[in-house]
């Protein structure tokens, strides 16, 4: 029996285990929606296509599955670009299905036509325009395979309307094998042995965990390695949750707003084991002075990550989990025992750094944003799934909410995309309906996708939104304060909405705290309300995120307050 393109597409979605699609309809995509409605696949209708992609991203991170979006041609497709770029930078597996004008009109400047495959080539892992109905099944199957395998990432499939309407026979296809695409999962034995040698010789080791650890589900193996070596562990922003944030070996985050002890330990360590990281500029600071005394082992599945920014002693191209399992096995075979005494002086040094400059702020008569996050952490016992927007809110969340498990911190790390948090929280709430999902936001970034409040209301998603309202685009204001002689150009956003009324107007609950003693009651009430809640905290307008490594400075040279 012949099926329409839309029917074939839906068949594949079902076979790929898709249970939720995020999207918005439009002229060119009606046929697919018509078929989708006949299935059990849940559709979350967002209010802007950017929200659809971020929601699918949040869903993918929280559920460890491929997130799926469905949008129309033209503006529907172009609105996905920011979401794709964010997912691409953070290696999040997505399949974004865009409708396209009929093949006969492609290239004709037709109504709602855009060359979305051309536009998104640099911000997708791969993309396709389906030109023949016979190619449809194989293409969509490949899209899922490419999205989730190797270093994951978003894949876009552009579907012309006539292809979707025409008919072809369909039979399920096996997992594709592509002669031009073969990710390396298994680590090279020689490289592992070299790594073991470096580990045995190290006196001051540091483990540096990135998003790759979370993506390859290697937290257990990473923790095992750290315990075995009695080695301290730091993380990139994307790596938060890969190692328990309350563990005695945890150093806190590394980088521009990393902890004093994490950054100092990089300056002094003699072995750095980077796992699932790409050493981006926000982590390394000035490259020449990064880990100057260290030999570096770098484990990553993407060969391009290696020797891109940082020269390493032993590169290992492999899936993080596979590499860590092997390393642990080899270390066991070597019967390498690190007794607590052998790197005691190293851990003592770190403890000294910790006590000299811990993360700190002073809560006086104006609400400090750090205080809000700290209280949120206490009240939720660290058990919430946290998404963030981008900027100061994101950094305070990273510093003061101690993530002790993977897939619970959802943030736009690489692209740094304001407007990510609310839709991502929506996606995460769909993925894990019984858990508490909180978006930590600033008043600037929440307004970048504020329309998604309606989505949360429509699907009864009890997402909680914490707005740290300083009526500034705070992170840029901080840069202006520190490096531009306080010229606050284009960062003052005093004329914002009344967020309490805004929440109410969408059908949610709005709460506001303006004094420190109101913080805990507002949090308690908000967290205990089983529906969409905005909790607005009117915070110190000019609070800065510290420590701060000025852009381009060595990572050990921090501004501390």
């Amino acid at each position: 029996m012949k099926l329409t393109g839309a029917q074939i597409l839906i068949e594949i979605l079902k076979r790929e285990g898709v249970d939720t699609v995020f999207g918005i309809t439009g002229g060119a995509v009606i046929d697919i929606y018509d078929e989708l409605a006949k299935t059990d696949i849940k559709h979350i209708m967002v209010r802007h296509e950017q929200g659809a992609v971020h929601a699918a991203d949040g869903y993918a991170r929280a559920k460890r599955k491929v997130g799926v979006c469905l949008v129309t041609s033209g503006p529907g497709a172009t609105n996905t670009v920011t979401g794709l770029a964010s997912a691409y930078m953070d290696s999040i597996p997505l399949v974004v299905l865009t409708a396209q004008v009929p093949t006969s009109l492609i290239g004709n400047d037709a109504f709602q036509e855009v060359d979305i495959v051309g536009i998104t080539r640099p911000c997708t892992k791969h993309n396709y325009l389906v030109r023949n109905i016979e190619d449809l099944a194989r293409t969509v199957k490949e899209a899922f395979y490419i999205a989730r395998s190797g270093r994951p990432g978003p894949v876009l499939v552009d579907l012309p309307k006539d292809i979707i309407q025409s008919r072809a026979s369909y039979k399920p296809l096996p997992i594709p094998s592509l002669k031009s695409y073969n990710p390396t999962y298994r680590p090279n034995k020689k490289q592992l042995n070299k790594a073991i040698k470096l580990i045995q010789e190290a006196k001051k080791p540091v483990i540096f965990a990135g998003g790759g650890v979370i993506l390859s589900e290697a937290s257990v193996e990473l923790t095992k390695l750290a315990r075995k070596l009695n080695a301290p562990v730091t993380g990139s922003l994307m790596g938060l949750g890969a190692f328990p944030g309350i563990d005695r070996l945890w150093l806190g985050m590394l980088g521009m707003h990393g902890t004093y002890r994490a950054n100092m330990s990089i300056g002094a360590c003699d072995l750095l084991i980077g796992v699932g990281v790409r050493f981006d500029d926000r982590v390394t600071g000035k490259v020449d002075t990064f880990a100057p005394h260290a030999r570096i082992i770098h484990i990553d599945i993407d060969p391009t990550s290696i020797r891109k920014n940082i020269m390493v002693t032993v590169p290992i191209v492999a899936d993080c989990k596979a590499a860590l399992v092997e390393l642990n096995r080899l270390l066991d075979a070597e019967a390498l025992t690190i007794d607590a005494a052998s790197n005691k002086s190293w851990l003592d040094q770190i403890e000294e750094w910790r006590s000299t400059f811990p993360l700190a702020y002073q809560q006086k008569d104006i609400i400090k944003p750090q205080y809000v996050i700290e209280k949120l952490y206490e009240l939720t016992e660290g058990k919430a799934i946290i998404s963030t927007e981008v900027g100061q809110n994101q950094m305070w969340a990273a510093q003061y909410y101690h993530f002790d498990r993977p897939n619970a911190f959802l943030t736009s790390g690489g692209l740094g995309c304001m407007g990510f948090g609310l839709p991502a929280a929506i996606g995460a709430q769909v993925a894990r309906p019984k858990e508490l999902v909180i978006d930590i936001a600033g008043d600037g970034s929440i307004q970048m996708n504020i329309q998604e409040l309606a989505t949360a209301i429509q699907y009864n998603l009890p997402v909680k939104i914490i707005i740290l309202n300083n009526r500034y685009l705070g992170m840029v204001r901080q840069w202006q304060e520190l490096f531009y002689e306080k010229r606050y150009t284009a960062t003052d956003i005093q004329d914002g909405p009344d967020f309490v009324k805004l929440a109410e107007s969408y059908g949610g609950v709005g709460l506001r705290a303006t004094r420190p003693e109101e913080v805990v009651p507002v949090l308690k009430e908000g967290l205990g309300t089983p529906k969409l809640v905005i909790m607005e905290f009117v915070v110190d307008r000019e609070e800065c995120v510290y420590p701060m490594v000025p852009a381009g400075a060595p990572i050990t040279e921090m501004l501390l307050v």
Partner: protein
Amino acid sequence: MAEQRHTISLLVDNQPGVLSRIAGMFSGRGFNISSLCVAETVDPLVSRITLVTSGDELIIEQINKQLNKLVNVIKVQDLTGTNFVERETALIKLKARPAQKAEILRLVDIFKCKVVDVNTTSYIIEVTGTGEKLEALLKLLKPMGIMEIARTGTSALARNKK
């Protein structure tokens, strides 16, 4: 680190958009393409791209890795430093003044070129060789008055081990 010229040979899926992926990767990452030569292989599903680029050791390493990362790229072979043959063809249209015709034809002979079009005022010469040979010929022809030139860019193949 010193800049080096590298000739890279790629086998890629013969599909629309593949060249754009490769060119886009180069422009997006600030890498340089000196020349590019693309055509189908004996397998109509596969094209060969010969690409000449330059950069220091780390840049060349990134270029090779980034090319490998593209889903439509089947094989990347950096020929520089290996035993390989490279050739480029140029068509050169130049003024053929009566006083210079003999000299032009002498050069055509020395460089083993062909005159592929003749009229009363101009010749079109076809020359094949390494980039260096082409440069040498062009230098000698320049005083005669080169009107137009079309170069194919370098094409290359690895030699089999003897």
